[in-house]
C-alpha cells in the first residue's frame, strides 16, 4: 500500500503557523537568553508574531481556497474574522501582561519561601507566560477553523492547557491563584473527557470524523440515532463548559477571581470568541440536519444561563466575580445567537463577540489599576466614591458597564439588538423575552456600581489608582473608543461581517 503525503496549503495556514512558530521560538529564548534581556525580547517576539499573523489574515481576505490541510481545516469568512478578532485581543492581552509585575518570579517556588524572595529580588524572573499565551492564541485560532473532530479536539486542548497554567501564575495571592488553576484544570479536563466521548459517538454514528461527512449521514445516510444523540449531548457539554453556560459555569467566577487580572482579561475575551466560533461551525454545519434534537435543549440552557447569570451577579461583592457572572449572562445572549440559525444570526454573533471581547478586555484592564499597598482591590465596597479620585477611569468604567447592560449608543446595544432580532426572526420568542428581562435585571446591578462610584462618599480605607505605564491605559482607551464608536457607527463593521459571514461546509 502506497503512502500519499498530505497536501498542506501553507499560505492559508500561515496565520496559525506564524503564531505556533513564534511560541516555539519563545520557549527556546526562555532557555538560552539572560534574565535581563528576556522580558523585552519575549514581548517583542510575541507582539511581532501577532502583528505578522494579523497581516496574513488580512491578505487572506477574499481567498478562494476553503478547505485546506486535507479537509481538516476550513478557511472561510467567519474564520478569518474570528482569527482577526482573536489576534487583536491577543495583542491587547499581551500589553496587559507586559505591564504590571503581577506574575510569580518562579511559578515552581513555594509562596513565601526564601528561594522565591531571592528570585524576586535579583530579578531572575521567568517569562514563560509569553510562549504560553502564544500557544493558547494558536489553539484559539485553530478551534473555530477545525473541520473534523480530530482537529477540533487537538485545538481545544492546545488552547486550554496553557490557560490552566497561566491561571496559576499570579505573584500576589498565590494560594488563590493556584486554587483557581487547580479548579480550572480539573473541571476543564473533565469537560474535555465528555467532549472526547461525544466525538467518539458522533464518529460511531457517521463513520467519519469530518463535519461534512457527519452532515451527509445526518441528512441522507443510514445511521444509528442513539449514537447521534449520545454524541451530540456529550459534545455539547464540552462546548458549553468552555463558554461557561449554566449549569456548567461553576468554574467561571472562581477562575476569573483567582487568576492574575491580565490573564483573566485575555481568557474572558478570547476564549469566548474561539469557543463560540467553534460552536457556530458545529451547530450550523455539522449537525444542522438534526436541529430537532439540540435546539430545544439549547433554548432551555440559554434561558437559565441568562437568568442565573444576571441574578447571582446582583449579590456579588467582588468586582471580578461580578464581571464573571455578567460574562455568564452574556454567554446566554450569545447562545441565543446560535439558536437563530440564520444568516443574520451568524452576523449578529460575530459582531457581538468582537465588541463584547474588547469591552471585557477594557473592563478587566481597568480593574487591574485600582490598588492599595497590598495589590489590586477588587472588593466593591472599597470602590465607593472612586469618581472622586479618578473621574476619568470611573467614567470609562461606567461606559463599559453601560455597554454590558446594552444601553443605546454603546456597542453592547447594537450587539444585543441584532442578536435578539435574529432570534426573533426564527421564532425563538421565549428566549428573546427572557433575554430582554435578563438585560433589565443586569442593568440594575451595573447601574448600582455606577451610582456607587459617583454618588457615594468614599470610605476611610482608601484605594488609589495607579497608572503603571502607557500599555494598560492604551488598552483601556482602545476598548473605550471601540465600544463607543461601534455603538454610534456600527455600519462599517456590520457590513464587513455581512460580507464575510458565509460558513463553508
Amino acid at each position: 500500500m502506497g503512502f500519499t503525503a498530505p497536501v498542506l496549503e501553507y499560505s492559508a495556514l500561515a496565520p496559525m503557523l506564524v503564531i505556533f512558530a513564534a511560541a516555539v521560538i519563545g520557549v527556546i529564548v526562555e532557555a538560552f537568553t539572560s534574565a535581563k534581556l528576556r522580558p523585552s525580547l519575549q514581548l517583542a517576539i510575541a507582539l511581532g508574531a501577532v502583528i505578522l499573523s494579523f497581516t496574513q489574515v488580512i491578505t487572506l481576505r477574499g481567498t478562494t481556497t476553503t478547505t485546506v490541510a486535507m479537509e481538516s481545516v476550513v478557511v472561510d469568512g467567519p474564520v478569518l474574522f474570528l482569527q482577526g478578532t482573536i489576534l487583536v485581543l491577543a495583542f491587547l492581552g499581551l500589553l496587559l501582561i507586559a505591564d504590571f509585575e503581577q506574575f510569580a518570579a518562579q511559578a515552581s517556588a513555594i509562596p513565601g519561601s526564601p528561594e522565591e524572595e531571592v528570585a524576586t529580588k535579583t530579578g531572575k524572573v521567568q517569562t514563560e507566560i509569553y510562549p504560553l499565551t502564544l500557544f493558547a492564541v494558536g489553539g484559539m485560532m485553530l478551534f473555530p477553523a477545525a473541520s473534523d473532530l480530530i482537529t477540533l479536539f487537538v485545538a481545544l486542548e492546545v488552547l486550554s492547557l496553557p490557560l490552566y497554567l497561566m491561571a496559576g501564575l499570579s505573584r500576589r495571592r498565590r494560594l488563590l491563584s493556584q486554587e483557581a488553576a487547580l479548579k480550572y484544570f480539573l473541571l476543564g479536563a473533565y469537560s474535555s473527557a465528555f467532549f472526547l466521548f461525544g466525538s467518539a459517538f458522533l464518529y460511531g454514528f457517521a463513520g467519519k470524523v469530518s463535519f461534512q461527512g457527519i452532515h451527509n449521514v445526518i441528512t441522507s445516510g443510514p445511521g444509528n440515532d442513539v449514537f447521534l444523540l449520545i454524541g451530540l449531548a456529550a459534545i455539547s457539554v464540552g462546548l458549553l463548559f468552555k463558554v461557561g453556560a449554566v449549569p456548567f459555569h461553576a468554574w467561571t467566577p472562581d477562575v476569573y477571581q483567582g487568576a492574575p487580572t491580565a490573564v483573566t482579561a485575555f481568557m474572558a475575551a478570547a476564549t469566548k470568541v474561539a469557543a463560540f466560533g467553534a460552536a457556530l461551525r458545529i451547530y450550523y454545519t455539522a449537525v444542522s440536519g438534526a436541529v430537532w434534537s439540540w435546539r430545544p435543549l439549547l433554548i432551555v440552557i440559554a434561558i437559565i444561563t441568562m437568568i442565573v447569570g444576571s441574578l447571582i451577579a446582583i449579590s456579588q461583592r467582588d468586582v471580578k466575580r461580578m464581571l464573571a457572572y455578567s460574562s455568564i449572562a452574556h454567554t446566554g445572549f450569545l447562545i441565543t445567537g446560535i439558536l437563530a440559525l440564520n444568516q443574520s444570526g451568524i452576523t449578529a454573533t460575530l459582531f457581538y463577540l468582537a465588541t463584547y471581547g474588547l469591552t471585557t478586555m477594557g473592563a478587566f484592564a481597568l480593574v487591574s489599576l485600582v490598588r492599595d499597598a497590598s495589590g489590586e482591590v477588587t472588593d466593591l465596597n472599597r470602590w465607593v466614591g472612586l469618581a472622586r479620585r479618578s473621574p476619568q477611569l470611573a467614567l470609562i468604567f461606567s461606559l463599559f458597564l453601560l455597554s454590558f447592560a446594552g444601553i443605546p449608543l454603546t456597542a453592547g446595544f447594537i450587539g444585543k439588538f441584532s442578536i435578539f432580532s435574529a432570534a426573533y426572526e426564527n421564532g425563538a420568542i421565549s428566549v428573546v423575552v427572557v433575554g430582554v428581562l435578563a438585560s433589565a435585571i443586569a442593568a440594575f446591578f451595573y447601574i448600582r456600581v455606577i451610582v456607587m462610584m459617583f454618588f457615594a462618599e468614599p470610605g476611610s480605607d482608601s484605594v488609589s489608582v495607579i497608572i503603571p505605564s502607557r500599555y494598560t491605559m492604551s488598552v483601556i482607551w482602545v476598548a473605550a473608543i471601540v465600544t463607543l464608536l461601534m455603538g454610534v457607527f456600527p455600519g462599517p463593521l456590520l457590513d464587513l461581517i455581512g460580507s464575510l459571514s458565509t460558513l463553508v461546509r
Partner: protein
Amino acid sequence: MNPTNYLYLSAILFSIGAVGVVVRRNAIVVFMCIELMLNAANLAFVTFANMTGNLQGQVMAFFTMVVAACEVVVGLAIIVTIYRSRRSASVDDASLLSR
C-alpha cells in the same frame, strides 16, 4: 465477539470515571478518574473504527493518547505546586475562593 460489548464496557468505564471525579476528594485520584474517562473514549473510538472499517478512529485514538500525556504534564505540575504550598492535595481544602 460482538463489538457492541466493547461499547458497553466503554460506557461503564466512562461512568466509573465520571462518578469518581464527583465523589473522590484527592486531586490525584480525581485526575486518574479523568484519565479513565479519556481511555473509555479511546476504547469507543477503536471499537467504532472496527465496526465501520476505516482507520480514522484509530488515528484519533493516537491523538488522544498524545493529548492525555500533555494533560498529565500540565495537571501534575499544578497539583504538585498546590501540594507543596498547602501540604494537601485534597480538593475540599482548596476553598479560599467562592465565598
